[in-house]
C-alpha cells in the first residue's frame, strides 16, 4: 500500500531530529501567524494565484531565503564537524549523515538558491527594463515557479521522511545506481531536481520569448540594457542545457527503476557516460548563474559612477563569447577520467580562453568608474568585494584548467575554495548588490544602510577567513567531503580558522535577515521620496513609480538610445504624448499551484514506490492541464480613466 514507506522513515539521529523539529515548529508558527492575522484570503488572491511577474519574482526570493537558511545550516554543520572530528573524536555527525548533508548542501544551493536568485531577478527586472507590461507567457511563468517550489519542498520533505541522497550533489554512478544506493535518497534527489529542472526549462522559454518579442518600440538589440542582455544569454544557455539534464536524469531513473544498463558497471553500461552528460548541462549551468550577475553589476557600476557603461558593445560580445565557450569546456570537470592528452589539452585551452571575455568585463567595469563620480553605497561595496573575490577565484580556476595541475588538486579543498569564490564571491555577492539596489523599486523604501554595511563587512571578511585557508588545505592534501582526519596531518588549526570564518559569515547572514525585517518596520523613516528614481539611475525601470503599478507602464515608452531614463532626465528623449489607453491583463489562476502540488505528490510517490499514488497524481497533472487548455484566455481590463486615476495617486508617493 505505501511501497517502501514504513514508520522507520520517521526516525533519525539526534542532530537531524533537531533540524526536523525546528522546521516543523517554524512552519507551524508561520501558519498560526497567517491565521492569526487573517491573511489567508489575501495570500491566496494577491500572491498564490498571481500571474504578475513582479509578485512571482518576490515569491522566488522568499523560497530562496528559506532554502538558503537550510543550505547554510548544512554548511555550518559540516564545518563544525570538521573542526571537532580529529583523531580520537568522531564529531557529532555520523559518516552517513555527513554524506547526506554535503549532498543536500550542494543540491540546495545550486538548484534552489542559485537558480531561484536568477529567476527571481529576471521576473522582477526584465519586464520593467524592456518597457513591457507583462511577460510573454504569464501562466507558464507561474507554472515554472510552482515546479521550482515543488522541487524545493521535496528536498525539505526528505529531511523529515526518510533520507536524502548520499551520492553528492551530482549523484555520480555507479554509486548512485540501484546496486550501491538501494535506499530512497537518490530517488529524492532525482525527483526534486527533475521537477525543478523542468520548471527552469519552462521559465527559460518564457523569458527568451519575452526578451525577443516584447521590447518597447525603438529598443533594438544593441540598445537593450546589459542586464537584459546577460539574461538573454543565460536563458539561451538554460534552453540548451536543461533538456540535457532532464534526459540524463531520465536515464538514471530508468537504470534505477527498470533495471536498464546505461550507467551500471555490468550489462555493458558506462558510468563515465553519465559524468559526460551531466557536465554537458553542469558547465553551462555555472554560467547560467553568473551571467545575470554580470548584468547586475553592469547596471550598478554606471549608476553609482554617474557615467555610462564603458565598452557596451564589447560587453555584449563578451557575453556571447562566454555563452558559446561554456559549451566547449565540460570535460575540465573530470580531466582525471583519463582521456587522451590531446582531448585534455583541447578542453584545457578552451577553459583558459574563457578568461579573456571575462577579463574584458572586469576591465570595462573598472574603466566605467574611471573619472566617474563613484558613490560608496553598499551595492558598490559588494561590487568591490566581487571584483577581488572573482579575480582570485578566476585565477585559481585558470590554474585548475591546466590538466597536470588539475591531477594534483582534483577533488581537493583547493577546488572547493575556487568554486565557492565564484558562487559566493560572484553569484551571492552580486545578488546582495542587486537586492539592495532594486529593493526600493519594489517596496518604495530602502534597506537600512547601516545594517547593510555591517552585513557586508561580516560577509566579506568572513568569506576570506572561511575560504582562503582552503587553498592551503587543498595543497596540503585535504580532500572535499571529509568527515574525519588524523591529528598528525596538522590540519586542525586551519580547520578551526575556517570554522571561525563560517561563524563570521553567519553573523552577516543574521544581520541581513534582521535588517530585512527591521527595514520593513521602520519603512517610514527610510521612505524613497524621489518619485521612483532614488539612485539617479539610467534605465527604464526607474522611470515609473515605486512600487510599480500592476501594469508597469501606463504609457509604453519609446526609446532611441541606450540609457533611456538618463536621456529623459537630460531632455534628449523623444517626447511621448500622455494618452492613456485601456490595459488588458491576464486574470489570476490557481492552476500553476495545483500542478506544482501534484508534482510534489508524484515525486514523493515515485521516491517511495507508491505507484498507485504516482499514477493518481500524474493523471491529476494531465487533467488539470487539460482543464486549463479547455478554458478560453481570460483578461481583465483596466480602463483608460482608471489608469489615469491610478497614475495620479501613485505619483503622490506617500508612505503606506
Amino acid at each position, binding site marked *: 500500500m505505501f511501497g517502501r514507506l514504513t514508520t522507520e522513515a520517521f526516525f533519525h539521529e539526534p542532530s537531524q531530529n533537531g533540524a526536523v523539529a525546528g522546521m516543523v515548529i517554524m512552519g507551524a508558527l508561520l501558519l498560526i501567524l497567517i491565521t492569526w492575522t487573517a491573511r489567508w484570503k489575501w495570500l491566496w488572491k494577491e500572491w498564490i494565484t498571481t500571474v504578475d511577474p513582479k509578485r512571482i519574482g518576490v515569491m522566488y526570493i522568499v523560497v530562496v531565503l528559506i532554502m538558503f537558511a537550510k543550505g547554510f545550516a548544512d554548511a555550518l554543520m559540516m564545518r563544525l564537524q570538521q573542526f571537532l572530528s580529529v583523531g580520537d573524536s568522531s564529531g557529532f555527525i555520523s559518516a552517513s549523515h555527513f554524506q547526506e548533508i554535503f549532498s543536500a548542501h550542494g543540491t540546495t544551493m545550486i538548484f534552489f538558491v542559485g537558480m531561484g536568485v536568477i529567476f527571481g531577478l529576471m521576473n522582477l527586472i526584465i519586464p520593467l527594463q524592456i518597457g*513591457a*507590461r507583462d511577460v*510573454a*507567457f504569464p501562466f507558464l511563468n507561474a507554472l515554472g515557479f510552482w515546479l521550482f517550489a515543488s522541487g524545493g519542498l521535496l528536498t525539505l520533505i526528505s529531511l523529515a521522511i526518510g533520507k536524502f541522497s548520499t551520492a553528492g550533489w551530482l549523484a555520480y554512478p555507479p554509486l548512485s545506481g540501484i546496486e550501491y544506493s538501494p535506499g530512497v535518497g537518490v530517488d529524492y534527489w532525482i525527483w526534486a531536481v527533475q521537477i525543478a529542472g523542468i520548471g527552469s*526549462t519552462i521559465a527559460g*522559454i*518564457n523569458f*527568451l*520569448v519575452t526578451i*525577443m*518579442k*516584447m521590447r*518597447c518600440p525603438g529598443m533594438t538589440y544593441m540598445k537593450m540594457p546589459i542586464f537584459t542582455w546577460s539574461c538573454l544569454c543565460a536563458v539561451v544557455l538554460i*534552453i*540548451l542545457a*536543461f*533538456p*540535457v539534464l*532532464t*534526459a*540524463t536524469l*531520465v*536515464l538514471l531513473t*530508468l*537504470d534505477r527503476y*527498470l*533495471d*536498464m*544498463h*546505461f550507467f551500471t558497471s*555490468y*550489462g*555493458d*553500461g*558506462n558510468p563515465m*557516460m553519465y559524468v559526460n*552528460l551531466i557536465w554537458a548541462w553542469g558547465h553551462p549551468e555555472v554560467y547560467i548563474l553568473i551571467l545575470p550577475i554580470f548584468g547586475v553589476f553592469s547596471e550598478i557600476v554606471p549608476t553609482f559612477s554617474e557615467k555610462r557603461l564603458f565598452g557596451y558593445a564589447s560587453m555584449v560580445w563578451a557575453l556571447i563569447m562566454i555563452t558559446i565557450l561554456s559549451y566547449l569546456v565540460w570535460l575540465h570537470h573530470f580531466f582525471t577520467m583519463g582521456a587522451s592528452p590531446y582531448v585534455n589539452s583541447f578542453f584545457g585551452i578552451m577553459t583558459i580562453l574563457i578568461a579573456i571575455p571575462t577579463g574584458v568585463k572586469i576591465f570595462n567595469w573598472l574603466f566605467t568608474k574611471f573619472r566617474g563620480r563613484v558613490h560608496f553605497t553598499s551595492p558598490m561595496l559588494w561590487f568591490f568585494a566581487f571584483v577581488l573575490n572573482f579575480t582570485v577565484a578566476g585565477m585559481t580556476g585558470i590554474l585548475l584548467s591546466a590538466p597536470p595541475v588539475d591531477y594534483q588538486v582534483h577533488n581537493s579543498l583547493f577546488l572547493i575554495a575556487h568554486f565557492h569564490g565564484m558562487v559566493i564571491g560572484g553569484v551571492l555577492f552580486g545578488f546582495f548588490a542587486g537586492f539592495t539596489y532594486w529593493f526600493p523599486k519594489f517596496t518604495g523604501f530602502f534597506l537600512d544602510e547601516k545594517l547593510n554595511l555591517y552585513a557586508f563587512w561580516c560577509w566579506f571578511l568572513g568569506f576570506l577567513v572561511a575560504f582562503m585557508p582552503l587553498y592551503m588545505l587543498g595543497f596540503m592534501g585535504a580532500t572535499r567531503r571529509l568527515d574525519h582526519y588524523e591529528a598528525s596531518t596538522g590540519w586542525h588549526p586551519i580547520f578551526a580558522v575556517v570554522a571561525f570564518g563560517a561563524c563570521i559569515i553567519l553573523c552577516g547572514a543574521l544581520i541581513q535577515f534582521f535588517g530585512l525585517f527591521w527595514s520593513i518596520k521602520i519603512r517610514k523613516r527610510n521612505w524613497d521620496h524621489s518619485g521612483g528614481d532614488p539612485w539617479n539611475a539610467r534605465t527604464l525601470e526607474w522611470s515609473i513609480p515605486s512600487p510599480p503599478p500592476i501594469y508597469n507602464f501606463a504609457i*509604453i515608452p519609446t526609446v532611441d538610445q541606450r540609457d533611456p531614463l538618463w536621456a529623459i532626465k537630460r531632455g534628449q528623449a523623444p517626447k511621448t504624448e500622455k494618452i492613456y*489607453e485601456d*490595459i*488588458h491583463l491576464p486574470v489570476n489562476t490557481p492552476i500553476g499551484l495545483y500542478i506544482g502540488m501534484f508534482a510534489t505528490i508524484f515525486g514523493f510517490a515515485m521516491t517511495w514506490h507508491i505507484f498507485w499514488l504516482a499514477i493518481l497524481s500524474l493523471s491529476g497533472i*494531465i487533467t488539470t492541464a*487539460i482543464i486549463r*487548455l*479547455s478554458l*478560453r*484566455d481570460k*483578461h481583465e*481590463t483596466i480602463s483608460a480613466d482608471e489608469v489615469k486615476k491610478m497614475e495620479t495617486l501613485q505619483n503622490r508617493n506617500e508612505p503606506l
Partner: protein
Amino acid sequence: MSRPLTLHHQDTLEAHPDTRVPDPHQDVFSTTTFGFWVYLMTDCLLFATFFVTFAVFHDRTFGGPSPKDLFDLKTVFIETMVLLFSSVACGLALLSSLKLEKTKVIIWMAVAFLLGASFVAIELKEFTHLVHEGNSWERSAFLSSFFTLVGTHGLHVSVGLLWLMVMMFQVFWMGITALTFRRLSVFSMFWHFLDLIWIFIFTFVYLMGMV
C-alpha cells in the same frame, strides 16, 4: 463563409471577437508559435541526448543480439508510412481550418488520430515481441538505449494523440476561432516535429543498424 484568412494576423481579425483582446504590443499568435518553436528546440535537445546515448551504446550488446538480429525493416517501413500520412492528414486539417470548414477539420483530425494510434499500436507490438523473445531493456546497454530512444518518441506520439482528442472536442464546441486555430497550428508543428525525429530514428537506429 469561406473568407480567406491571413495567417499571421489572426488576433486582429474582427471575425473572432471571443478571444483575448489584443494588446497593441503583443501579437499572441506569433508569440505563441515562436514560444512553441523554442519548446520544440528543447525537446530536440532531449532527443539529441538520447541519440548520443544510442550512438555510444549501439554496439555494446553484452553478448546479446545486435540490431541486425532484431529489426524487421518491413514493419518499420509500414510504421514510417503510417506516421507520415498522419502528418499529411494533420496538414489537411490545418488547410481546412483556414477555410473555416469545421466538419472537414474534425474529419481530418480524426484521420490523423487513427493513423497516429495505429503507429503506436505497431510500435507496442514490436516492443512486446522483443520482450517476449527475452530481448527486453534489461538485456544490454544497447537495448536499454534502443527502448529509451524509440520509446520516448512513442510517448511523445501518445501525448500528441491525447492532445488531438482534446482538440477535436474543442473545435467541435468552440468552432474555428483564433484560439482553436492557434492551438491547431501549434499542434501541427508538434506533429511534424515528431515526424522529423522519426526520420532520424528510422535512419540511425533501423537503417544503419542493418548495415
